[in-house]
């Protein structure tokens, strides 16, 4: 058990180290930080002073360590485009992205499991077939087209929901701008959350369905039926429970994708989160923001993967005993 955890954490550290190296390489070698920070009228002495102050003459490994040290303390430098500390920008915009991602993931999980169970039980039903076919289109539809379609229907044609922005926000804990507690905020959250979660929903639905079909074929379900258990009890207590291990894994892993795809949703809906910040940084080659975003997303992904692996380990005893050379 301990060996598994240590190996897994070790892998995570290696991945993070690599991501950090890439972020540092982007930060240090792309473009000229001195050129970007000084105006055109800077003298050679100014340049030398800034180079000295930024420590650009130090050996590269020391610069890397300093970069990582700074990043750990939330220091990512100053945005070339906005002229403000990157950490400030990210703290300002992170709540918007996190709220969007969480609501989308909940939406995907709830509806995905529900529809998956339904289509699994009513395998040949008409409605189940309709759901399955439309899910195929849902998978092929690029995220931004789903967003535009929803805007067209619900914002332009019916005018029920806002098409951009976050609506009114409430400030929590002094810095967290939340939309979860105002009517206009919640209304403006609906469309982006569906857009972002739809793909994951279809994924979870298909997974739950195929797992359900597999489980329903097993002997213990037949036995439960023979014992005369109620159908709900069979479907939900016995069948669904045994499909949940892969569902948890996929949901966990997809959480990272949700945060990445938030970039697209945020652009479509002009949702002021970190994704929009990143896209603007790419267009304007705003390197400190790009490097910081990379580090942030890297850390999120590695953490999620690690947690999912450890959870898997905790839930599924087979993982524990299959691995050779060590007991539980």
């Amino acid at each position: 058990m301990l060996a598994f955890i240590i190996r897994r954490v070790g892998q995570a550290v290696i991945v993070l180290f690599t991501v950090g190296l890439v972020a540092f390489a982007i930060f240090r070698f792309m473009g000229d930080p001195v050129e970007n920070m000084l105006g055109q009228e800077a003298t050679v002495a100014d340049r030398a002073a800034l180079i000295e102050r930024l420590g650009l003459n130090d050996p590269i490994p020391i610069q890397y360590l300093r970069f990582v040290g700074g990043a750990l303390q939330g220091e990512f430098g100053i945005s070339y485009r906005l002229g403000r500390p990157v950490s400030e920008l990210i703290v300002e915009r992170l709540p918007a992205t996190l709220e969007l991602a969480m609501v989308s993931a909940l939406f995907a999980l709830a509806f995905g499991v529900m529809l998956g169970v339904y289509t699994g039980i009513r395998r040949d039903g008409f409605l189940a077939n309709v759901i399955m076919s439309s899910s195929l289109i849902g998978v092929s539809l690029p995220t931004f087209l789903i967003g535009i379609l929803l805007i067209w229907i619900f914002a332009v044609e019916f005018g029920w929901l806002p098409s951009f922005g976050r609506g009114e926000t409430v400030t929590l804990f002094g810095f967290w701008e939340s939309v979860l507690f105002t009517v206009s905020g919640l209304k403006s959250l609906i469309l982006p959350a569906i857009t972002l979660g739809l793909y994951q929903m279809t994924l979870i639905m298909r997974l739950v369905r195929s797992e359900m079909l597999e489980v329903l074929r097993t002997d213990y379900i037949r036995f439960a039926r023979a014992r005369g258990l109620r159908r709900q009890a069979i479907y939900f207590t016995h069948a669904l429970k045994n499909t949940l291990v892969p569902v948890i894994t996929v949901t966990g892993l997809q959480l990272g994708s949700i945060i990445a795809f938030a970039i697209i949703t945020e652009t479509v809906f002009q949702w002021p989160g970190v994704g929009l910040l990143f896209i603007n940084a790419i267009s304007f080659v705003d390197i400190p923001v790009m490097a910081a975003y990379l580090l942030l997303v890297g850390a999120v992904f590695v953490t999620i993967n690690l947690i999912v692996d450890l959870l898997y380990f905790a839930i599924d005893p087979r993982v524990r005993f299959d691995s050779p050379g060590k007991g539980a």
Partner: protein
Amino acid sequence: MSDSAREQAAQTPEIAAEPGWLKDKWARFLDSDIYYSFKRSPVTIVAFTLVVLLMLGALVGPWIAPQNPHDPAQLNLMDGFTAPFAENQFTGNFYLLGTDDQGRDLFSAILYGLRISLIVGIVSVLFAGVLGVTLGLVAGFFGGWIDTLIMRIADIQLTFPSILIAMLIYGVARGLVPVDMRDEAAIYILIVSIGLSEWVQFARTVRGATLVEREKEYVQAARLIGLGRGPIMLRHVLPNVMGPVLVIATIGLALAIIAEATLSFLGVGAPPTQPSLGTLIRIGQDFLFSGEWWIILFPSMTLLVLALSVNLLGDWLRDVLNPKLR
């Protein structure tokens, strides 16, 4: 019979059949499992027809398009916002799918955009395929530290969604190109970034297949007659691992087309001077609120039909080539 006589006997009919070689192949194709399964799947036939039509449209686009949408001399501002399937109320000009704000014919713009989308999609999949197959073959065949290195990189890359990788590479590559060349280089940067974001699938599959093939007797036999590693890899192992590669390439094409459209839609893809379908959709989004729905609808439909058809083809191919499902 001596060896040389047998060889000659084997060769004679082949030489005689030389003119009918193509016919022979065609007959074999018509008799194959693939064609049989194709014939029996109406969805696949429709998808295939649509893909062929769209590719043809992209190929001959500049010759069949009513106008060159990127030549300002051919645009008439009076024709702006002409509705589809109707004549313009001022000039009386007819545009099949309507025009945008500058009087640009949407049908022509879509044909030109389709060209960019398909070129970027196909070339980036080819790039990803060549890179992935090569690395996978090398990793699987040689093993050892080189295998570990390649697969570790693949694992790390696989931790992140490919669209994010593509964006990042796009951003980095853009930063490396001089400012005044960024628009011209955009298409190439796009190809490289999508290609580099999708090679992992190829590499992993090919590596897995190579590990299996490597141990088979024909490889040992080839080794025994003194063939080097290079020829064994290229002439003997490679053809035997190409089946799954075809499937990944087809599905990868759909993914690449969507990735390109997404990047262009976000404004970090094809430049405004060479708009792809994604760029057209990006432009069209501005007119959604003012009621000119056709500017965004038709490019979106084209993209959707293209991506969906290629996806369906890929799914079908995967089922046909999967021996477990036979």
